[in-house]
């Protein structure tokens, strides 16, 4: 009895703190459950539905669609293709963005603000508009080919193929990459670079031994973000690929809207989610290795 009364005063605050945590988390948990979790579960269920030869979907469970994933080499190729193209674009975006981010990190004052606004400004325009901009530049009678023609050089095919998709997506992803890199450049300190220099490190060695390792967290974050955006990008591959570049997102769109094979679209969507999960695991592992 006496022990119970001695413990009693300690219990209510803990319980009310737990209550507060639950109360604070409830709204976002509810929104996520209705807006994200339920549709994803629905999608997962749909991937097991049967498809009639006419294309209509029947609410009968079957493993047929998933079996097709495994047996039809087209889908294996589609996944490998999507992942490798996205990885390539991510790498290209990183190479293009890194010097800009480093320069931005080192600039100061008004100049830095101006540059930062310039980096962010493309995000104010929709990807659709920017993709059309690239069409005007890359198409057979576009800016580049007209210039090549004027110089007497043979025209280059830069649209409706992987080249166009790569160029367009890289440019579209660059602002995200630059911002992610900047967020991860916190450990860079000019004094540390100076210290390396006084110890005898020439500029490239300073980059390799000091700057690069210190910016790895930013690189990992930027690559994760851009890879996820690249795999799920749809408009740019659709418009610049012209149906000749087969990627997961465009295939999902075709299956859902054109072919009306919803179970197949659902299965591919779940696969995209699995790929994202894999990327996230890799990112976490990489981060743990870096820090």
């Amino acid at each position: 009895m006496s022990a119970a009364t001695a413990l009693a005063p300690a219990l209510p605050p803990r319980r009310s703190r737990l209550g507060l945590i639950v109360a604070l988390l409830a709204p976002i948990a509810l929104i996520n459950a209705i807006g994200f979790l339920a549709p994803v579960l629905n999608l997962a269920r749909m991937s097991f539905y049967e498809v009639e030869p006419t294309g209509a979907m029947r609410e009968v469970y079957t493993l047929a669609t998933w079996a097709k994933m495994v047996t039809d080499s087209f889908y294996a190729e589609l996944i490998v293709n999507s992942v490798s193209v996205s990885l390539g674009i991510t790498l290209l975006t990183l190479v293009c963005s890194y010097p800009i981010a480093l320069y931005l990190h080192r600039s100061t004052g008004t100049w830095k603000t101006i540059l930062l606004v310039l980096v962010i400004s493309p995000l104010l325009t929709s990807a659709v508009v920017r993709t059309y901009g690239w069409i005007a530049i890359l198409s057979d009678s576009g800016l580049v080919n007209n210039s090549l023609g004027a110089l007497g050089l043979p025209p280059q095919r830069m649209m409706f193929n992987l080249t166009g998709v790569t160029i367009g997506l890289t440019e579209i992803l660059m602002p995200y990459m630059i911002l992610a890199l900047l967020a991860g450049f916190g450990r860079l300190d000019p004094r540390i670079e100076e210290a390396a220099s006084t110890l005898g490190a020439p500029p490239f060695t300073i980059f390799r031994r000091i700057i690069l390792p210190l910016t790895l967290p930013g690189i990992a974050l930027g690559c994760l973000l851009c890879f996820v955006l690249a795999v799920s990008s749809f408009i740019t591959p659709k418009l610049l690929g012209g149906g000749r570049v087969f990627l997961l997102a465009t295939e999902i769109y075709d299956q859902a809207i054109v072919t009306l094979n919803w179970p197949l679209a659902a299965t591919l969507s779940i696969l995209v989610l699995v790929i994202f999960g894999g990327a996230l695991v890799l990112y976490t592992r990489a981060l743990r290795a870096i820090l």
Partner: protein
Amino acid sequence: MTDQSTAPDQGTNGTAGEGFLSIRGLTKRYAGFTAVDNFDLEVPKGELVAFLGPSGCGKTTSLRMIAGLVPATAGRIVVGGQDLTTVETHRRDMGLVFQSYALFPHMSIARNVAFGLEMRKVPKDEIARRVREAIALVHLTGKEEHKPAQLSGGQQQRVALARALVIRPSILLLDEPLSNLDAKLRDEMRNEIRDIQKSLGITAIFVTHDQGEALTMCDKVVVMNEGRLEQVGTPVDLYERPKTAFVASFVGRTNRLKAVAKDGAAEFAGQRVPAPAGLSGPVQVMIRPHRIALSPSTGSEGVTGTIARAIFSGDILQYDVDVGGQIVSVELATRGGETVLAPGTQVSLSWRPQDIFVYGAAA
């Protein structure tokens, strides 16, 4: 590192001229202002020289020019007869200890210390040996595999010192190395840096705004103000024979009193003090508080004043004496048994003529 016979310093063959480090006419101008103006200095081998001055006096800029981190606008930097003025930082062979330590956060302590040796392509087993010795020298044995963030400020400072020393630099540059440490650690590191510098016989420059550090640690002190060199001398020189009013007031504590000079003498409270030739009109008279003798009897020779305040702080008894409207601080070392004179008591002050300095009022 502790074994001098196997540690021949690099780039120290022959001291050309009078200084091992010779700085001539070093100048740094930025748009609109001159950070360092026509700086001349000769540092003999093995000396520890302080660059002392208030913030913004150009001492750090001078150090950074010596390290090659800031290009000089004009002037020359010569080390051991070799002109380094246009040599890139990474080829200068100088060890720099930063105020913020600037350790490589992603490397272990051992890797931090090894970095400079790796840059010099020293064989692996020798790197291991020298790193071990350097870490032992700064009393950090056992912390080799720690990351800098796992060490305290004082320990990080020691790593920075070991990292700069392990390459056996021609010159060790220390940029306010103690100002981020707490008082107790600062005193400890002060002695440690001095001992290490002496035992290695390394030429070193120590940038500080703390006159105590400069006086107690260094062979020679360079006092700087607003980009210009005020005076170069031993700690005793600066304290006993300050050339300018700035040096007199910046190094040690002093009374700054207003007086009027004419005919080669300054008149202060009815007493005539010899003044440098050429001075006339308002001047500053400076005298250190503990170089003033105070006696309670009036009428004797000296300056008469009234005690405005008495402060007893154990080892020192300080009187603020009102002399003709100006406050003169007097410090007396306590011997025990003295009576503290009450405010309002008439006293007379006297001093030896060599303890009083007269400067133009403009300074």
